[in-house]
């Protein structure tokens, strides 16, 4: 379980969000960790959040973050011949969404979530343009906080994304 109190990926112990509000559990489902099921997971999650009254703009950001984070699990956590599941839990607070993504695959490299620097150093060098490496950059640009932790062979990625008051 992530030990950063401000993020509180806790599943059993709701932690006060700086006195603002108690989190409301809006989503908790497991899926096979592959690209096709990730599409389904994102669809299900955004449907649920749309019903919560979030704006289309916020839902677009949610979709980007979930696609990058979940596809990362699908691509890197499990070996191709031994795939597993991922679990997506979403909690809502007054001014933030909390995503908790769990899997039982490999740990992240060096036990850390990638820093996510922009892969490009020049913006005009045609041939040098990288075709990958934008995923973590996108996540980091959109979210407010991100914590990765691992306990008992399970990976936890906990992401906090600020939302507008009247979403």
């Amino acid at each position, binding site marked *: 379980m992530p030990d950063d109190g401000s993020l509180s990926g806790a599943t059993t112990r709701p932690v006060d969000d700086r006195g603002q509000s108690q989190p409301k559990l809006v989503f908790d489902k497991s899926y096979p960790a592959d690209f096709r099921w990730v*599409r389904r997971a994102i669809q299900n999650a955004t449907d649920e959040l749309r019903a919560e009254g979030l704006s289309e703009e916020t839902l677009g950001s949610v979709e*980007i973050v979930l696609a*990058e984070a979940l*596809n990362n699990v699908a691509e890197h956590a499990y070996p191709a011949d031994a795939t597993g599941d991922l679990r997506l839990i979403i909690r809502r607070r007054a001014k933030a969404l909390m995503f908790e993504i769990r899997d039982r695959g490999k740990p992240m490299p060096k036990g850390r979530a990638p820093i996510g620097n922009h892969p490009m150093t020049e913006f005009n060098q045609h*041939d040098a343009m990288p075709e990958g490496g934008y*995923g973590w950059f*996108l996540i980091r640009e*959109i979210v407010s906080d991100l914590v990765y932790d691992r306990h008992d062979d399970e990976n936890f990625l906990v992401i906090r994304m600020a939302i507008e008051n009247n979403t």
Partner: protein
Amino acid sequence: MQMTASDVDGVLVVTVMDRRIDAAVAVRFKDKMQELTQQSHERVILDLSQVEFLDSSGLGAVVGSMKHLGRERKLDLAALTPTVEKVFRITRMDRVFRIFPSTEMALEAAANA
């Protein structure tokens, strides 16, 4: 991956009919782009008006398609939907590609060039 290509006065307009260019289809998108751009059009406009979502894999495939065309040929983008536009803006790819509000406007720009 459903994509169509048509010649408009010497410019190749490729339209993606799928709603998503994501990790599940990025390789197929790139393959299809290569197949559709085999003729030597100097300019290709990629119409993304039907595409509601594109992730970093899709973005990488668009960059890869641009690189595959080579320096002598140009790939422009048209009609980005809001979330697709957001991905291009956040990654600053809007500085790398010419992006037009519509394919019609992209074609006019070609005529004026």
